């Protein structure tokens, strides 16, 4: 007697949504606690100079049209920069400069964690007057950073740690982005959503090129990508409730990482002998690359019912957990490219990836169907959190509205994914909904709610 349907449906979606929620929640908390420190000090906002506000530094005293114009310019420049960097990346990838890309990625992760993370830690320390001396602080920061880089780009690290660091990275970048002036942030978010749409869907879009390239080579993407894996939803299997998200990384060439996520997964990859089903362990093999990961799962999977919320892929006992044998090349996730669809019902694989290269700037996100798991780019994490963080500077009400909007947008994207079965941009729907809900809430709902609730009227 098990109510297995309720438990098995939606595992993948929740696996993606929970880390996104955690990331957003922490960013909101951070923004809240830090911005409360000196709300009126102009130094707290808008003074940083990044690629996102190269052209125009917003001044609160400027007129609306001036701000809009400047924000548009900023966004344009920023998007162009991203596009250039992405094309560069595609080019490098095309000519197989994978070592360079890999090291670059490591460097940027180190840089982000060390400097941006460091400055955020400093602010937190100042804000809460934590008594810590500089040497200790430096040591702690250094350790944090090194462990972070190692855990993101090498194997043999507990999955949970890796996930944590990925979320940390998202939080740090997002917290940094929330320091941008208000108008620029909004225009930038919209511009990025549009860019995402174009880059993933149009034939010559850089991300599409990249995805296609990676899939023809049967490699993982050179990017920072989260992969959500379904946890086993069996009755009596309690431990599997942790987020089925993990980020697989391969340290360097010729190492293969096998990850079995949940403990009693039935690893049915028939991939030739390599995948010793090593449950709940991460093993590092050392295989001379060239082997694309193969994962075939032929468990039964849920049908992609194109119905709302219905399409969550994993049926309970399927073996989408399973090993990942990553080829040596890139540092990240392989994407389950080979659509080996066994059986008639297969779960869509959603994969959104992102290239979180280039410090805080470039991101790209898209969702892609492969045949197991859902992948979400780190950039999507970042920009969802930026939106929510920006909303947090106004009110809690807008935060909650934006959160719901983004999550439902993510849900819509996943549903679309099961229909389209190809890589999809994860930003546009969520960002559009988020922005709409933000302004609706701010302009319409707030006076209504405050008017009613401050008179203790409720319904």
């Amino acid at each position, binding site marked *: *007697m*098990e*109510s*297995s*349907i*309720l*438990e*098995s*449906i*939606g*595992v993948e*979606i*929740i696996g993606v*949504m929970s880390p996104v929620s955690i990331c957003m929640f922490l960013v909101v908390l951070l923004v809240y606690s830090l911005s409360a420190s000196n709300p009126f000090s102009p130094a707290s906002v808008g003074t940083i100079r990044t690629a996102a506000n190269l052209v125009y530094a917003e001044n609160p005293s400027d007129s609306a049209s001036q701000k809009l114009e400047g924000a548009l310019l900023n966004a344009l420049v920023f998007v162009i920069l991203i596009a250039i960097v992405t094309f560069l990346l595609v080019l490098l990838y095309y000519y197989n400069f994978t070592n360079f890309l890999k090291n670059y990625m490591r460097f940027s992760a180190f840089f982000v964690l060390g400097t941006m993370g460091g400055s955020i830690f400093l602010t937190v320390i100042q804000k809460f007057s934590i008594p810590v001396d500089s040497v200790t602080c430096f040591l702690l920061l250094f350790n944090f950073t090194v462990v972070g880089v190692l855990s993101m780009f090498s194997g043999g690290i507990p999955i949970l740690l890796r996930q944590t660091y990925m979320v940390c990275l998202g939080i740090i970048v997002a917290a940094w982005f929330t320091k941008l002036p208000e108008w620029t942030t909004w225009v930038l978010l919209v511009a990025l959503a549009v860019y995402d749409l174009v880059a993933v869907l149009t034939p010559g879009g850089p991300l599409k090129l990249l995805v296609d390239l990676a899939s023809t080579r049967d490699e993982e993407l050179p990017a920072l990508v989260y992969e959500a894996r379904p946890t086993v*939803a069996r009755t009596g299997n309690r431990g599997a*409730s942790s987020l089925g998200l993990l980020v697989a990384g391969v340290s360097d060439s010729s190492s293969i990482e096998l990850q079995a996520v949940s403990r009693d997964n039935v690893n049915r990859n028939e991939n030739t002998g390599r995948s010793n089903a090593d449950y709940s362990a991460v093993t590092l093999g050392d295989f001379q690359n060239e082997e694309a990961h193969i994962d075939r799962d032929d468990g*039964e999977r*849920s*049908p992609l*019912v194109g*119905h*709302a*919320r*219905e399409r*969550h892929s994993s*049926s*309970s006992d399927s073996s989408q957990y399973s090993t990942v044998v990553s080829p040596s090349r890139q540092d990240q996730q392989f994407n389950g490219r080979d659509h080996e669809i066994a059986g008639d*019902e297969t779960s869509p694989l959603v994969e959104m990836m992102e290239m979180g290269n280039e410090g805080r700037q470039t991101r790209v996100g898209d969702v892609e169907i492969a045949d197991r798991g859902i992948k979400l780019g780190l950039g999507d994490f970042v920009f969802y959190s930026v939106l929510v963080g920006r909303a947090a500077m106004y*009110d*809690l*009400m807008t935060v*909650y*509205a934006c959160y*719901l*909007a983004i*999550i*439902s947008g993510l*849900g819509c994207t996943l549903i679309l994914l099961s229909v389209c079965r190809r890589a999809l941009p994860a930003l546009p729907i969520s960002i559009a909904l988020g922005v709409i*809900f933000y302004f*609706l*809430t701010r302009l*319409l*709902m707030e*006076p*209504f*709610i*405050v*008017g*009613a*609730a*401050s*008179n*203790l*009227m*409720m*319904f």
Partner: protein
Amino acid sequence: MTVAAGIGYALLALGPSLSLFVSVISKKPFLILTVLSSTLVWLISLIVLSGVWRGFLPLKTTIWWPFGILILTSVAFQEGLRVLFWKVYKRLEDILDAFADRVSKPHLSLTDKMQIALAGGLGHGMAHAVFFCLSLLTPAFGPATYFSDRCSQIPFFLLSAIIALAFVTIHTFSMVIAFNGYAEGNKVDQYSVPIVHLAAGMVTLINLAPGGCIVGIPLLYFIAMLTLFHCGKMAWRRLTENQSR
């Protein structure tokens, strides 16, 4: 200390639903999705309502009937939405059953259905608490508190948390009652839910009168207890019937 107070208010309003969420909902991904979508539905209903009422705001606090109309329209709209929610759920249930056949799992049991209803109600309730109580709570984390003129004995934040708790209870369990009523075709349950909702809304009108909260809140809690009790009784009856069969 003030942070503690703020968290305390928040937990007062949302604590029970939080424990419900952790103990029942969070283990089943589908229920989490139900909670989220029902929260979204409630948010959308609120936005639509506020869009309609935007032109008439702010209402004068000296006369009570505009508030009465406001609550009446809001409740009517939300109850209409509840029927819609039921229709959608009905179709979803068929799909779920069809899916269960395909993966050779048992169909939705009675408890499953009740849990879905509970999740839907919890979504409504949590949305209510978040928007009506939690979103106003930001100043409570600061170094002061706020007293409303009409109920000067109790801090405003505490009041709104207490009221929100009652509404969370009502919303959560009236959804279970309503779904059961629809499923069984039980007219009494079907009609009692909107009436209870409306009554609860109207009871808050008493708060407009000076010192009214002393009367209003106990009345509100009476309604909440009634809902809870009725829901418990009904769930018990259906479960025992189901077992004996």
